[in-house]
């Protein structure tokens, strides 16, 4: 069981292509962190034509205290699901921040310090639904981020989805979590672990 930890402005950016479910991903994760974990969270996004086929991005700011400025300025975590997104937003990654990418779609990573998984093909081949790719990412991040409790996040995910697609997404979530643990190693995300405050229920 992971412990609840004090956070002071933890900034995540999800970025990629329109249609990858990036905003839903941010929304579900934000909701899980805000309502399930009790953090203050702001989620903002880019709207408009970009959301239909162009690039898409969605920011989360997570904090134990009040969040004043709601946008992400220097990223602790950048999730890049396309080459273009990776190129545009990598400069905003904080020193010591982590880059997570879609290893099939980002062929030229700007650094060799990254964590990658072929999320799209995993969703297509192992879950059977390509659209569940964003949930695979959510599962992987729930493993990576030391302040996310897997069970709580999964519960939050399930509550946010209509019954019809719930089972598929649970499967995708678990797959992401499992593979992240396997591929990224036990101590991935260790940089963000701070002193324990108590357990998350």
């Amino acid at each position, binding site marked *: 069981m992971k412990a609840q930890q004090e956070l002071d402005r933890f900034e995540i950016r999800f970025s990629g292509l329109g249609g990858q479910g990036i905003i839903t991903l941010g929304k579900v994760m934000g909701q899980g962190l805000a309502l399930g974990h009790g953090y*203050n*969270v702001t989620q903002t996004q880019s709207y408009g034509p*970009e959301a239909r086929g162009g690039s898409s991005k969605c920011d989360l700011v997570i904090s134990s205290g009040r969040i004043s*400025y709601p946008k992400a300025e220097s990223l602790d975590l950048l999730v890049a699901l396309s080459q273009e997104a990776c190129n545009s937003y990598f400069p905003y990654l904080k020193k010591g921040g982590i880059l997570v990418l879609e290893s099939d779609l980002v062929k030229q990573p700007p650094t060799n310090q990254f964590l990658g998984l072929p999320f799209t093909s995993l969703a297509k081949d192992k879950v059977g639904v390509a659209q569940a790719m964003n949930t695979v990412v959510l599962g992987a991040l729930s493993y990576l981020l030391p302040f996310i409790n897997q069970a709580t996040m999964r519960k939050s995910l399930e509550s946010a989805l209509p019954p019809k697609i719930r089972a598929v997404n649970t499967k995708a979530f678990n797959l992401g979590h499992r593979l992240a643990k396997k591929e990224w190693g036990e101590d991935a995300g260790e940089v963000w672990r701070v002193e324990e405050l108590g357990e998350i229920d």
Partner: protein
Amino acid sequence: MPRRKKRTEIFALGNEAVVEGALLAGCTFYGGYPITPSSEIMEIMASRLPKLENGVFIQMEDEIASMGAVIGASLSGRKAMTATSGPGFSLMQENLGYAVMAETPMVLVNVMRGGPSTGLPTSPAQGDVQQARWGTHGDHPIIVLSASNVQECLDMTITAFNMAEKYRTPVILLLDEVTSHTREKIEIPNEGEFEVFSRTVPSMPPEWYKPYEETVRGVPPMPPIGSGYRFHVTGLTHDRNGFPTQRPEEVVELMDRIHRKIDQFFYDIQLVDEIMTDDCEVCVIAYGSVARSAELAVQQARGNGVKAGLLKLKTLFPYPRRHTEKILAHARTLVVPEMNMGQMSREVKRVNMGHASVRTINRVDGQIVTPSEILKVIMQG
């Protein structure tokens, strides 16, 4: 002391919070026309209102018609609202003036985006501030509120309805794209934890009723159409009976009253948050999402040993003069960051009258003013 019932928490968009606030305030009518970035308000209303007893949602053919329908609904006794953004707000100005003249309570939410014209549909701006104040023609009083975070979207929408009903006037709630498209955790207050004001209705026999009669508060009671009080509503300057008049003494009486009904309640209408302003030497005056950047900047400045404070405006108009004057007693610099070329800073300068130096930070590139930009100016003193 009775244990307070736990409030429901939701993770909501600013626009969603507006809907929650409106429904808590008793809104039963939404008439609108979709426009980015306010459309979610309309979409959520479209799914919620028809399922409520007595809730009415209607999509009108344009923003002009939306205002017409909202005023019509309000005259019929409903708490009514619409929401729009820049170009739509421009189209609403004509009937907004009608609502002022006919003293029709209503709430107009304008989610500001980059302008002029179609401008930047998906980017934030604060360029409609002076339009909200002076957009409709003729001298008129108006109440303009704003919100800087999602919880405030809910709270200020309730406040907007209360003020509209209390003062029989249209109330504009100015949001910006950042605030309305941010998702945050908010608490939905339980019934009884917030004020809900509904307009006063006449109690005298219909034949004694004068629709625009002088009252103590300057706000005449207002019956719903069809309730037995038959009277004339017009956008023409009218006498106490509601009939058009051009007699100077009757014209001035009307103009006096519609201004006075707002002016004498400044203490109730002008809302601000004073953050570390008690001893501040540099005071940031901000509103909307920029106030969030300002708050961070002020905290950082304090950390650097600068006595900074933030006056967060929740009421933009009538401009909170007395709050500003209080700060002017000790502040030597006022910093006004805005996502426009300097619209609120005009008000600040007007009130300041040379007491302090007023520094403006203006951005019109579709980006929010960042905390570091504000901090830089604060640190310059």
